């Protein structure tokens, strides 16, 4: 894996975009009904990732 690809995959912009996409999919009614755990998991994930840059 080249450094450029590695950065693109693990960079904060790409990860945040991925979380946004998953949140949109998980919040859709049918998905929410079929897989509610995913929505709860993503709610925690987004909040945890938002604390990036701190410890």
């Amino acid at each position: 894996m080249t450094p450029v690809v590695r950065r693109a995959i693990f960079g904060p912009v790409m990860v945040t975009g991925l979380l946004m996409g998953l949140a949109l999919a998980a919040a859709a009614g049918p998905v929410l009904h079929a897989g509610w755990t995913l929505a709860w998991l993503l709610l925690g994930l987004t909040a945890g990732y938002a604390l990036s840059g701190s410890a």
Partner: protein
Amino acid sequence: MGLITGAVTIATLAVTLGSLLRPVEPRPVQSGLVLAAAVFVLAGECGLHRITLPHRRAQVPSTVIAAGGDAGALRFGFEMGCGVRTHLPSNLPYLPLVTVLLVSSWPAALATGLGFGLGRAAMALGRHYSRDGTWWDHQWRRHERALRIALALAAVLLAGALVLLP
């Protein structure tokens, strides 16, 4: 592992405390409180207010984290996972906390705790696997405001869907 343990511990405490509230609060009140928390958090991330909810003001010194390499923050897994003993640059973690407290079930609380731990780990692991921590930090600082708003929007969307689509 410490991150997930810390986050699941707090989620378990929240759902336990919430079990005292949920039976006596009508569902519309619970939903209203979660939505109010969502609006408050989103407004804060958008810079519309500067109110910060309680958290530890001091950060772990960067020299201590740097001593652990790129993933040095993971040495404080339990503290970072529970969020009680670490600095919170955002009010966003209060949104899943309130949602778990007021409307979740036990499995949902565990899933949220697991997600929060994974989310905190994703930062340190992403920084580590990018193989360029300086670049990662620069990217975060450069886009921080937009990233925080995007993450808050995602969390607000999820919390709203969870309370409005039973």
